[in-house]
């Protein structure tokens, strides 16, 4: 058999595949949609659906309106912080290990400044968060410091400042002026959940539709190439950290409004939960891949598993073990998926 002969059928086969490709994309069908998804995000959403159905049937007290409300309530704050952190992760800078500290200190800043009225208190809290994010972003983006170590250092700095501001005490707040944040719209949708949805959608649009979003993704895929191509890499990284810190601060404000106090112990588990949400959602930890909505889904998934364990009377520690296991499982899945892509 001559090489020419073997070449021919292969070519024809390739043509057929190409033709099939255009047909599918013309149809915009389920298969095309399926192919564009990552195995991991699909697996997570599939698993979420299965667990959801299982819990509705098998776990007493899960499928009630009250429980769904409390589930969404608990997911909302982690979700807001996770959506912000996703910018840092997608930009190729892993995580912000100062998310928990930022949230905790923001509860104090919010509780302290609530006497100025709700709008001003929000401005002060988010502004303080932005300053923290700016410092970390400047270190990582302009001075090329390691993001993990930088944010570990920032966490210590932020907590130290928080201790000075609070005097190490719980700051009680008269939260009547912040009641609007604790309300429920039409008795079903808590305001906090609406804020989560709004933040997630706005962030998703920012990521998908704007030049900044594309630059974040390209910076995460290959920072040097992005720099050579003339992208505003430094500005992008600084802004990603600012967004993440502002989101964490917003979570803190909502947390303080709920608890009517500011306390450095509030939000202590946020670091874990947010990282878990981002990873489980299918945002690639080395950057460049994943979308904001993935992180939001990850938060819902983590929150749902936690909620089921609580409702079925399991202890807190089992939740942590389950979260850790889910994180490791999902990175294993991501690793397998990326091997398949290659």
């Amino acid at each position: 058999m001559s090489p020419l002969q073997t070449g021919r059928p292969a070519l024809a086969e390739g043509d057929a595949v190409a033709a099939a490709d255009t047909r599918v994309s013309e149809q915009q069908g389920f298969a095309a949609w399926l192919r564009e998804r990552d195995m991991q995000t699909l697996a997570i959403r599939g698993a979420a659906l299965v667990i959801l159905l299982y819990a509705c049937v098998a776990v007493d007290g899960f499928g009630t309106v009250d429980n769904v409300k409390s589930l969404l309530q608990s997911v909302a704050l982690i979700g807001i912080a996770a959506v912000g952190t996703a910018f840092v992760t997608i930009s190729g800078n892993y995580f912000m290990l100062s998310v928990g500290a930022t949230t905790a200190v923001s509860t104090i800043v919010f509780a302290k400044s609530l006497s100025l009225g709700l709008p001003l208190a929000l401005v002060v809290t988010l502004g303080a968060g932005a300053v923290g994010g700016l410092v970390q972003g400047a270190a990582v983006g302009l001075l090329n410091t390691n993001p993990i170590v930088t944010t570990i250092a920032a966490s210590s700095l932020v907590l130290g400042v928080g201790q000075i501001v609070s005097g190490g005490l719980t700051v009680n707040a008269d939260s009547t002026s912040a009641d609007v944040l604790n309300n429920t719209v039409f008795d079903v949708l808590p305001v906090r959940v609406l804020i989560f949805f709004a933040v997630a959608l706005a962030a998703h649009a920012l990521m998908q539709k704007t030049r900044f979003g594309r630059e974040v993704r390209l910076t995460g895929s290959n920072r040097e190439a992005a720099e050579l191509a003339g992208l505003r890499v430094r500005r992008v990284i600084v802004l990603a950290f600012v967004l993440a810190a502002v989101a964490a601060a917003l979570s803190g404000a909502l947390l303080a409004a709920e608890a009517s106090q500011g306390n450095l112990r509030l939000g202590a588990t946020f670091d874990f939960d947010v990282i878990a949400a981002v990873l489980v959602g299918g945002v690639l930890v080395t950057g460049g891949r994943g979308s904001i909505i993935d992180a939001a889904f990850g938060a819902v998934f983590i929150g749902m598993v936690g909620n089921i364990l609580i409702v079925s009377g399991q202890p807190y520690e089992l939740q942590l073990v389950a979260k850790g296991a889910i994180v490791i499982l999902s990175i294993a899945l991501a690793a397998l998926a990326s091997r398949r892509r290659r």
Partner: protein
Amino acid sequence: MNIAKLARDNRASLLRIALLVALLVYFSANRAGFLDTGNLFSLMQAFALLGLVAFGLSVTMIAGEFDLSVGAMVAVAGIIAIKAGGSGAAAGLAVAVAFGLGVGILNGLLTVGLGVSSLVVTVGTQIMLTGLAYGLAGGQTVSYDNFQVAADVDQAILTVFSPRSLVAIGGGLLVWLLLRYTRMGRDIVATGSSRDAASAAGARTKLAVVVSFAISGTFAALAGGLLAFSLLSAAPTTGGDLLLQAVSAAILGGIALAGGIGGMPGVAVGALTLTALNNGLSYIGASDAAISISNGLLLLAVVTISAGGPARLAELARARIRRPATS
């Protein structure tokens, strides 16, 4: 060899030692008694915890990886040592150390097996270890009534040392010997310097990563178990800020985040510097907030300098001056 050349070649080491000496001088000038044997003993007791954890973490960093789970390991190992030490402290410590070794190997295997960043793997194990710590302790502080073992691990040797601090020093020494004189040590350094090149040259890169995590897990567990014996108690929240301090000690000690660079003598000086800073600040009556902030600032400064921050800052400033109108 003349002294000027020796000083030039070891400039970074000399700077590190100068910083440590400067801190010691500053604190003893501020409050008498800082360098008394009593306080030197408590400095070494703090070093017993931080030094051992930092030595282990440094090995993973030299191999080009990172073990985020050391803080949680210290907490859970302390609880295990007490829980399993009902019949005898030695048995409890053995169980805790075996657990640390096992989790370390698991971290290493997951990292090389999945081919993913060890940051992510160890974030996962950190969360699980914290859960395990809460589970074992029932969310409370676990106490131990073996007063003899507390007296034993903390008895003074040569006035400033104790068995605990000697274990930390011994651990550092062992790793120093491993890295310097064994094939595995050279493999670890080569793996951190350039994994592909090391692999092509026949270094056992995967084994090197697993061994480095095994050392890190074992050292953190040993430190946690001994700490629990010394305090006669252990809590799931122990070791919260230990990760920060261990990273600081490592980087301050000249370990490069990119891997392949640095050694145990530097880490020992780094850990002593951190210990002196924290002990000194509380000795002169600084608040927790001041200690927290100074730790954060120190780490931020060190990581900025080691990333070539000042040079980069100058470069950015020059670029701005050269083209003021365009940007």
